[in-house]
């Protein structure tokens, strides 16, 4: 799907909205990465515990 356009004048409120969504997503990504790291390290601990 594509569109060809000369664009339109910037709506500053939309710029602020998308920039806020970017910040929120960066924070969420950081949390998800931490959760994944904790999850995988706890799984590794379980593996180690089970192997002994």
């Amino acid at each position, binding site marked *: 799907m*594509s569109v060809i*356009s*000369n*664009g339109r004048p910037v*709506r500053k409120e939309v710029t602020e909205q*998308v920039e806020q*969504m*970017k910040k929120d*997503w960066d924070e*969420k990504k950081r949390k998800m990465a931490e959760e994944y790291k904790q999850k995988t390290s706890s799984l590794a601990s379980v593996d180690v515990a089970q192997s002994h």
Partner: protein
Amino acid sequence: MIDTSGPHSGASFWLDVVDRVIKFLALLVGAAWTWMHYARSRTYAQKLELELDGQVFFNKELYLEVVLKLKNLGAARHPVQELGTSCSVWAISRGLAETPILGTSVFQMEEWIEPNESINDSKVFRIDHPIEEIVWLKISLRVESEGREWNLTRHIRVEIVDEARGEA
């Protein structure tokens, strides 16, 4: 020596004047036509082609793959600006309520696009939202540059939601 004091010397002078006036008017008309053509064709105005494609897949969780393309159809170089340029995703539920899921910068590797050049970007996201609530994903590409913005939005049906609901 040429005698210019004959009976037709006055007529010759006025013919010369008329000739010069006509040439000047033709020049003005030509310039006006060229300017009008230039202004109306907006040759050097920023003209972009935006392309957006998205695909969802389920592998224990819901993932979204987005492919974005931007082509400069104008005759001038187009700067790529990070501020305000993004790919955003919303989840749409059965009641058609929209929940913002994410927004991310795109085309960060580029500083500008030359005329007729196209650039691509591809993103993969894990959708961290209750899958049983999602019916569509709304994907929006927004490009902002030098006081103007371009937008393209697409809806992706989350077909796998019924199958995934049992596993979720």
